[in-house]
């Protein structure tokens, strides 16, 4: 092994280790309980708003239940994914309710 190669190894080793450690930490802490709580709170807030508009969707409730179930098992990756899905569904139901305040007239028999 030449001096240049040894030098190169010395300089890249810490970087490689840092990447490996970083990846490991990242994989280990992909989603924390705090992440789940934040995502779930956002989903719940959106669903509450849909409820005020009298337009909640059953699938939102299902996604929220799935999020809780995953969190209980400690699977925070899945819990966050389900929470985000619930939030997207709740936001779609809010959009629908707002859109329909006027759009319903297009279906009216006249």
């Amino acid at each position, binding site marked *: 092994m030449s001096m240049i190669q040894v030098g190169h190894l010395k300089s890249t080793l810490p970087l490689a280790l840092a990447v490996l450690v970083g990846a490991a930490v990242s994989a280990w802490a992909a989603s924390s309980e705090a992440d789940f709580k934040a995502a779930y709170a956002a989903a719940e807030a959106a669903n509450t708003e849909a*409820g005020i508009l*009298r*337009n*909640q*969707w*059953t*699938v939102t*409730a299902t*996604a929220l239940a799935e999020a809780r179930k995953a969190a209980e098992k400690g699977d925070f990756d899945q819990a966050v994914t389900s929470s985000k*899905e619930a939030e*997207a*569904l709740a936001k*779609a*139901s809010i*959009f*629908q*309710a707002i*859109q*329909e305040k*006027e*759009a*319903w*007239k*297009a*279906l*009216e*028999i*006249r």
Partner: protein
Amino acid sequence: MARFFHTVLALTALTFAVAPPAVAETSDPVADATAFRKYFTEKFPQVKLEDFVNGAYAIDEAMRRQWQAIEQFPPYEFSLETGKEMFAQPFRNGKHYADCFPNGGVGIRQDFPYFDAKEGKVVTLELALNKCREANGEPPLAYDKEEMAALTAYMAFTSRGKPFDIKIPDDPRAREAYENGKRYFYTRRGQLNFSCASCHVQTPGERLRAEVLAPALGILNAMPIYRSEWGGMGTVSRRFITCNSQVRGVPLEPQAEEYRDLEYFLSYVSNGLPISGPGARP
């Protein structure tokens, strides 16, 4: 994944929805009812007007033959008998349901729902029955369960053949209730982005999975109904709740203001068509 797919579909449909034409701020219920009747009689010219109260059976000939056979031994018969007994049974204070209604509660189904000026709200038959019970010290019945269905089945039976006679008094609150019901009927909801009208105006006579969709005209005249799908009787409340669930919308509470107003609207636009309840449906 499927949920996201449906959401994307729904949102796409919303995004590309045609802008609604301008409409008068105050609608005319008489004109609405005329237009409603014209729409369905033109869509189904082979169906006699009074036959619209028979739902999909009025449209689909094969189903009609099956229904006529079923009517020889109607599945709602047991419920009807139960309702008759319940109606005659005195409350603990010795009074009866008959004491709460005009004409002893016989032959009055066609007058419900009505707008109660004192309460400022629409009163359905189901609501009136529970008000009667509570006024006599009895606990209310569940709106979506068999006992309420049995009672309304009996009361509907005593009104068979009598035309719906729903009135909208000259009261802005009554007009608002009617408008609210109309708006609910045409408003899309649930993940599937369906309104009541999507099935019962746009596609009656078509199949939704195994079900043939009924036209909205006369759709409440046969209530309450025995549904094979339910394996039992169902009230108007149960029907509305089920419809909401089927489009993946969270149902409102039974006898919510929106549901009562919806019943007011749907009954009004079917004025003149005979009561045919209790009914039987697939």
